[in-house]
């Protein structure tokens, strides 16, 4: 399942597609403290966070996660969105809290 499949199934907003139509998702990581996220998020994970700043993009690139889901209505500003496009990072958005989002993604991954 790709991040775009996830977005379509769960009604998440696709803020930037990036590689979201080709990456295969494997597992979920939730966290906002970037040093911890860097240590534990795995490549191809869906990373769910409320942290929407330039460091989010750097950590997404370094950990090679399949996509970032910004929860709780968080979003990137225009300059960061341009950077996400340049780095081809898939950014999804939702108004739901992190836990509910993770649970919905988990159920979908279990079924697939």
């Amino acid at each position: 399942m790709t991040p775009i499949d996830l977005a379509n199934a769960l009604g998440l907003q696709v803020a930037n597609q990036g590689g979201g139509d080709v990456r295969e998702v494997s597992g979920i990581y939730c966290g906002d403290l970037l040093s911890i996220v860097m240590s534990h998020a795995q490549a191809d994970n869906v990373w769910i966070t409320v942290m929407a700043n330039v460091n989010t993009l750097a950590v997404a690139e370094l950990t090679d996660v399949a996509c970032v889901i910004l929860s709780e209505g968080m979003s990137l500003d225009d300059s960061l969105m341009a950077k996400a496009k340049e780095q081809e990072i898939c950014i999804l958005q939702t108004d739901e809290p992190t836990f509910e989002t993770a649970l919905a993604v988990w159920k979908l991954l279990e079924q697939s």
Partner: protein
Amino acid sequence: MENTLTLRYEVDGEDFTRAGEASAAVKRALKKMGVSPEVVRKVAIALYEGEINMVIHADGGVITVEVTPKEVRMELADHGKGIENIELAMQEGYSTAPDEVRSLGFGAGMGLPNMKKCSDEMKIESTVGVGTTVTMTVYIQ
């Protein structure tokens, strides 16, 4: 003679938005060279934490990365305020970062411990008022 690739980056101390550029560039270079994903990940995390530290605490500095067939050696040198107590700074949770850095997702006292975890060798030399040099090595073989 040993085959060595040397990469050098200047870290701008006033620009938080550019922190991570050096580690991303090194990551891409190592990937291209066919270095294993695990080594690439360790180097990228160690360097990014180091870059963030240089921006937060030291007004920037210079990163030099040497890649040999056996290892990746990284040197992060700055002329910042230095570390008063290295042992304390190495403890998880100890931080002197300002609040605005915390709101960006850092400053939880995990940087140096993370760097140590990701390296096979790490050395910190620091003189208060003069600067800090961190050297880290990640083995490829």
